[in-house]
C-alpha cells in the first residue's frame, strides 16, 4: 500500500490527473490501437497453441476406413442417375432419392416448409438406444447455386454403406434440403418442434458440399462458423481436419487458395485470423455453407467442401472423411464438452483460445467508456448538477430512441426496403445541416446525450463480447469514429460541421456495413454487392434466427442516433451565471 500511496502522491503533486483528463480523446485512440495490437500479436510464435484432441474417446482415424474400392462403383452408379436430376423439380428429385433410401431400410419422410420440401431419413442404430443422432446433410444446391452432384452421390452411398455396419450407437439421419441455409434451417427447427419421425437429439452434423461430377478434387475446405458467435466444439473441427490430413488432403480455412495452404508464417496466420473474425462476425449475412443451419440446440456442425477438379484425391477419399468422423462421434458417450467452444483458428492446426483474445475486446469497450468520460467531464457543463433537466432530457431521448429503433427494426422486418433505410440514416447524419438555428438542446444536454450514447454502446459491447467476440470487436472498431464528433454552435466553423457529417456517415451501422462490404475484398461478404447486405441482414433473422440485425438496430443504431442528434446546432454555452441560477 505504501508504494501505491507514493505513486498517488506523485500523480497528485505533478497534477497528472487534470492533464490525463485533458488527454482523454487521445487516450481512447491509444486504447483502440492497443486493442488492435493485441489481436495482431496473436499470430506470433508463442502466442498461439497447436490444436489437440481433447476428448480421448474420439480417436479419429484409429479404425480403418472401408469406404473405398467397390464403394466407388456405387458412388458412380448413383451419380450417373443424379446428373440428370439438376433440372427436375425438387419433388421428383426427393421422390427418387426417397425410393433409394427406403431400399436399404432408412425410414424417410418429407418435410414441407414455406417454400420447398426437405427429404430426410432416419436409420435406426441396431445396437443403440435411439436417443441420439448424427446428421449427414446434403443440400441439393450449394451456396453458390451449383448442383451438388458429387455431394448427393457420396451422401446416399455413405448412407447405404452405414446401414451395413452394426457398430452404430447413435441413429443416423440423412437430410436432403433444397439449399444450405433457409431450407436446412427450417428442417432443423421443425425437427425440434413438429416432426413426427425423429431419431433423438442431434449430437453432430456434417454437411457435404461437392458440386460437379468429377472423380477427383484438389483439396478440402472446412467451414465451421456458427450463427450468433456460436462455434462447434473445437474437437469436432479438429477431428475433421485430422482425418482429412490423415487421408492425404490439404485443408483450407476461410478460402485460403491452394498454393498458400502450405505456407505457415506470421502473415498467413494473421490473414486467417482476420478472416475468421470477419466471417464469424458476419456469419449468417455471408455465404451460408450449411453448418450455420445447425447452430443452437447443442449441435456441433461443420461443412466439408471439395475444391478443384484435377487433383490426386478421389471422391471416395472425400467420403472417408465423414465416414471416419461418424465413427469418431459414434464413440462418444457424453456430449462434446471437453474442448473449447470459443476459439479462433490461425491455421488448420493452430488456434488461440478465448483468454488470449478477449482482453482486446474489453479494451475496445473501455475506449468507449473513456469517450463517455470525455464527453461528460471535459466541458463547462460538468459543473452542472447530475440530477437535473440536463440529465433527464438525454435519458428521455435515449428511451425514445431505443423504442423508435425497436419499431424501426420490426417495421423493416415486414418491409425490407434497403434504400429507404439508407435514406433515413443519411438524413439523420446530415440533420445538423437541415435543422439550423432551431437551438434544439442546450450544450450541456448535447454533451450528456453523447455520454449516454457512448455508455450505451460500451455496455452493449461488453455484454456482447462474451457471447460473440467477433461481432463486438467489429462493431467497436466500426463505430469508433463517432466518438470524435464535436458539438457545434452557431459560430462553429463549417469545416467542423462537415467533419462531423463524415464521421457520422462512416460510423453509421448500415452505411458502414455497405461501405465495408463493397470496399473490402476479403470481407467474406463477397457476392453481396450494393445494398443487398441489408436484405441479407433481415433475411438472416427471418430464416436463420441470426441476431445481428437486432444487435445493430438496438445496440449500435440508438447510440449513433443520439450522437447525430447531439451535433444539431446548440444554444450558446452556459455561462457561470446560468450555473449559479440553476444552483
Amino acid at each position, binding site marked *: 500500500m505504501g508504494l501505491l500511496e507514493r505513486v498517488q502522491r506523485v500523480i497528485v503533486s505533478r497534477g497528472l490527473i487534470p492533464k490525463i483528463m485533458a488527454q482523454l480523446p487521445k487516450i481512447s485512440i491509444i486504447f483502440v490501437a492497443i486493442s488492435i495490437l493485441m489481436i495482431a500479436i496473436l499470430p506470433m510464435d508463442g502466442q498461439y497453441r497447436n490444436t489437440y484432441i481433447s476428448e480421448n474417446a474420439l480417436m479419429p482415424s484409429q479404425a480403418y476406413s472401408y469406404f473405398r474400392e467397390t464403394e466407388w462403383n456405387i458412388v458412380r452408379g*448413383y451419380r450417373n442417375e443424379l446428373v440428370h436430376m439438376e433440372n427436375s423439380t425438387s419433388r421428383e428429385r426427393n421422390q427418387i432419392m426417397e425410393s433409394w433410401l427406403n431400399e436399404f431400410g432408412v425410414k424417410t419422410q418429407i418435410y414441407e416448409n414455406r417454400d420447398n420440401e426437405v427429404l430426410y431419413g432416419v436409420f435406426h442404430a441396431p445396437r443403440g438406444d435411439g436417443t441420439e443422432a448424427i446428421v449427414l446433410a446434403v443440400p441439393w444446391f450449394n451456396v453458390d447455386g451449383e448442383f451438388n452432384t458429387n455431394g448427393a452421390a457420396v451422401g446416399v452411398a455413405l448412407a447405404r454403406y452405414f446401414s451395413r455396419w452394426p457398430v452404430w450407437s447413435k441413429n443416423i439421419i440423412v437430410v436432403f434440403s433444397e439449399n444450405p441455409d433457409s431450407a436446412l434451417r427450417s428442417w432443423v427447427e421443425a425437427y425440434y418442434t413438429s416432426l413426427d419421425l425423429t431419431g433423438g437429439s442431434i449430437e453432430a452434423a456434417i454437411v457435404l458440399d461437392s458440386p460437379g461430377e468429377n472423380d477427383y478434387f484438389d483439396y478440402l475446405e472446412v467451414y465451421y462458423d456458427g450463427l450468433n458467435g456460436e462455434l462447434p466444439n473445437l474437437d469436432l473441427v479438429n477431428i475433421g481436419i485430422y482425418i482429412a490430413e490423415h487421408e492425404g488432403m490439404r485443408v483450407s480455412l476461410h478460402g485460403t487458395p491452394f498454393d498458400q495452404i502450405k505456407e505457415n508464417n506470421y502473415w498467413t496466420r494473421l490473414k486467417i485470423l482476420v478472416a475468421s473474425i470477419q466471417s464469424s462476425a458476419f456469419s449468417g449475412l455471408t455465404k451460408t455453407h450449411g453448418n450455420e443451419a445447425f447452430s443452437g440446440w447443442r449441435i456441433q456442425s461443420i461443412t466439408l467442401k471439395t475444391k478443384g477438379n484435377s487433383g490426386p484425391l478421389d471422391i471416395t477419399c472425400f467420403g472417408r472423411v465423414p465416414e471416419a468422423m461418424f465413427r469418431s462421434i459414434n464413440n462418444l*458417450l457424453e456430449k462434446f464438452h471437453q474442448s473449447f467452444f470459443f476459439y479462433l483458428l490461425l491455421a488448420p492446426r493452430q488456434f488461440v483460445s478465448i483468454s488470449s483474445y478477449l482482453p482486446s475486446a474489453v479494451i475496445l469497450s473501455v475506449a468507449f467508456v473513456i469517450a463517455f468520460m470525455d464527453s461528460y467531464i471535459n466541458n463547462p457543463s460538468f459543473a452542472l448538477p447530475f440530477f437535473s433537466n440536463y440529465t433527464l432530457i438525454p435519458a428521455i431521448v435515449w428511451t425514445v430512441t431505443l423504442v423508435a429503433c425497436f419499431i424501426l427494426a420490426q417495421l423493416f422486418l415486414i418491409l425490407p426496403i434497403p434504400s429507404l433505410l439508407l435514406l433515413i440514416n443519411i438524413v439523420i447524419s446530415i440533420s445538423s445541416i437541415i435543422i439550423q438555428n432551431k437551438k434544439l438542446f442546450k450544450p450541456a444536454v448535447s454533451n450528456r446525450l453523447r455520454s449516454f450514447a457512448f455508455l450505451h454502446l460500451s455496455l452493449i459491447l461488453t455484454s456482447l463480447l462474451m457471447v460473440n467476440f467477433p461481432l463486438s470487436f467489429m462493431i467497436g472498431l466500426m463505430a469508433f469514429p463517432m466518438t470524435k464528433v464535436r458539438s457545434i454552435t452557431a459560430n462553429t466553423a463549417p469545416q467542423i460541421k462537415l467533419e462531423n457529417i463524415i464521421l457520422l456517415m462512416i460510423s453509421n451501422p448500415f452505411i458502414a456495413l455497405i461501405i465495408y462490404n463493397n470496399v473490402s475484398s476479403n470481407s467474406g461478404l463477397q457476392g453481396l454487392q450494393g445494398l443487398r447486405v441489408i436484405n441479407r441482414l433481415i433475411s438472416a433473422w427471418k430464416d436463420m434466427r441470426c441476431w445481428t440485425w437486432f444487435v445493430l438496430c438496438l445496440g449500435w443504431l440508438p447510440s449513433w442516433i443520439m450522437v447525430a442528434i447531439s451535433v444539431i446546432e446548440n444554444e450558446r454555452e452556459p455561462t457561470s451565471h446560468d450555473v449559479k441560477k440553476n444552483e
Partner: protein
Amino acid sequence: MFKRNATCLIFTTLLLFSRICYGQESNYSIYKNDNTEQLEEFRNSNTTSEVESSSSTVITASEDGSFPEGIQEPPLDPSITIQEGLSYPFREKLYVKPLPNNDLLTSFQFKMNSEEFAPSISSLNYGQYNHFTVFPKAIESVLHRTDTRQLHLRFTRGFWDAETWGRLPHDGFKSGGNGVELWAIIEAESKDNAYSKWKTLANSLSGLFCASINFIDSSKTTYPVTSFQPDNDQGLPVFANSKNQLYLIRAALANEPICTENLTPFLKLLPTKGKSGISTFLDGHKVFDSSWHSLSVDVITNCDVNQDKCKYETDAVVDMVTHVPYSLARNKNPIPKPLPAEQLRCDTNKPYDAFQCFPLPESTETEFDLSQIFGKTIKGSSMMSDIPSHICAIITSKWDVSIKVNGELFGTDDNCFELDGMDEYDLYLASSDTSDVTTLNEEVPLHVSRSLTGYGQDHGGLRTVFQNPTPMPITAIYFESLPWYMRLYLSSLKLESIDSSNLQLEDVIDSVYYNSAIDHKRPSHLEYTITIPANTTLAISCQFDKALLHFADYPPDANHGFEIESAVITVIKPFKYQIRTETLLLSLSTPDFSMPYNVIIITSTVIGLIYGTLYNLLVKKVVRVEQADKLIEQQAGLKKKLVAVVLKLKSKVVDRIKQKKVINFYI
C-alpha cells in the same frame, strides 16, 4: 459399471452361500450316486428340491467329458438313464417367423411351473418342505421373502420397426421399453411396507440378473392405477391375513445396457441351463448382435381358492430380430468390407461396367440353416419335460422349412417339429420370395412416437404422436412416469390434430390420473385414457421446466444427459395390445464442475479487499496530505529519540542480565 459388477458379485456369492446352507446335501448326494431309483424316490418324497436335481444329471454328464463334441456320441453315461414317465412341468417352444426386408423373428418360450403348495403354511415351519422341481429356487426364495405374488421383468434393447415388421411378438405383452423394466404385485400391510419389500425385491433381482435394478428407488417407482393390471384377480389371494393388501408397483431404468451378463443368469433359471433343448441356441454373441431383442421373465402365483393350493408359474421368453443377409455375411467376414466387384449386385438396366454400379436392393431369394444365424445347433431335447421341445415356423407358401436331424432333412405339413431324441437338430429355411411373409396381414392398431422439443436448457416440451392406421377407433391407456427434474405443466397439455380434423383435447382424452412429482422422492406419474378416431393422426404435447440439480445429483457422466424412460401405451379396445415409445435423452444444464474453485478464489479475494478497505476506514484517521507529511516528519523526529532511548535501555538491561547470569553460574 464397477458398482454394478460389485453388487452382482456380492449377490451371486450370497446366493451360492444360501444354496449350500439350505439343506442341499441330499441333492448333491443323489446325483453323486447317479442312481435312478434314488432319483425317483427323491422325486416322490417331499424333501427340498431344486432345479438342479433333474438337470444336474445332464450337466454332470456333459462336464464329465465322456463325449467331447456335444451329443453326437451316445448321449449319456449309460449309468444315467431317464426313468420312463419321469417328467416335470417344463415346456419350451421356438417360433421362427420371417419378417419383411429379410428380417427374421425368433421367439424362445420357456414355461416352468412349481409343484403345488399350501399358501397358509409357512415354509419356514420345520417338517414342511416345498417341492419346486423345475421352478427356479432362486426366484422362489425372493418371492417368498418379499411376499411377491406376481413378478414381471423385461430386458429390451433396439428399435421395433412396427411399420415394416408389424405387431410386436405376444402383442407387446412380453417386451419392455429400451432398458430394464420391472413391475410386481406385492402383498403388504401398508404402502410403506410394500415399498420396503419392493426395494428388497429389486436388490435381490439386481444380484440375480447382474443388472443395476438396485438403482430403483422411490424417485423412480410408481404405483400404476389403470395400466399393468393383472389379467384376472382370482389367482391373487392374500396369503397372510385379510388386513393385507396387494400393491402394484412399477419402475423402469431407461437405456440400461443389456448384455451377456444378463443372459447368462437368465439361462441359469432354466432347468436345461442352455445345455440342451432349444436354449442351446442362445449365445450372447448372437442374441445381442440382433437388431432388436427382448428378454422377459413373468412369474405369477396361480391359486385354487377352493383347495387352498397354489403354484408358481414362470414364463421366460427371449425374442429377437435378426437381419439374415448381414448375419450370414458376418459368418464369412466379420467386417462388412466393400464387396469384390464380381459380387456386387448391379442394376443392369442402368449404366454398368467395371467402374460403375447402381446397386440393386437385397436379393429376395434365400436359403439358410438356423445354425448359421445362431452359430450352434440344437443339442437334443429337454428330456425332463412332460412335452418335448417344439419348433414352429410361421411361414407362407413361398417358404420351405424342414428340420435337420443329424444332417438329414425332414418336413411336416404344419411346419412344426417335435424334438424327441438326443440328436443334433437344426432348422433349414429357404424361400424364393422373402418379401412374402405372414406379418403382411397383421394390423398394428397404433403407432406411437414421442420426442423432446424446444430450444435451450431451461424448458422444453414433450410431444407424442398417435397414429391410428386402422378403420376403427382405438382406445388406449397412456402411462408415463417422468423424473422429478422434468417439471411438467399439465395445464399446457395440448392437442395438435395433424389431419386437420378439428379435434379437441376433451374429445380424445377420457380420464386423467396425475400424481405430481416430489423433488428427489417421487416421479411425475401421468395416466390417461385416449381414444383415437379411425385413420387419424394426432399429437399431444406438454411443456415442462428443467430443474437445476444439486451438484451431487449429477451422475459421473453428467454431460451424457438424463435418460427418460419410455411411455407405455396399452390398447384396450378393440383388442389388447401394448406398445412402448422410444426412450429419450434429456439434457439439463450441466455446471462446469471446476468452477466452484474459481468462485471460491474470486470470492475470497473480493472479501479480502473489502475487509481491508473497511478496516482501514474504521481504524485509521483521515488527514490531508500536508498534515500527513507533517505528522510523518514529526514521527521521524520522535522515532529517532525513541530509538536512542530504547537502545540505551536495552544495553543496560543486557548488562544486568549478563551480570546476573555470571552470578548464577558461580552459585
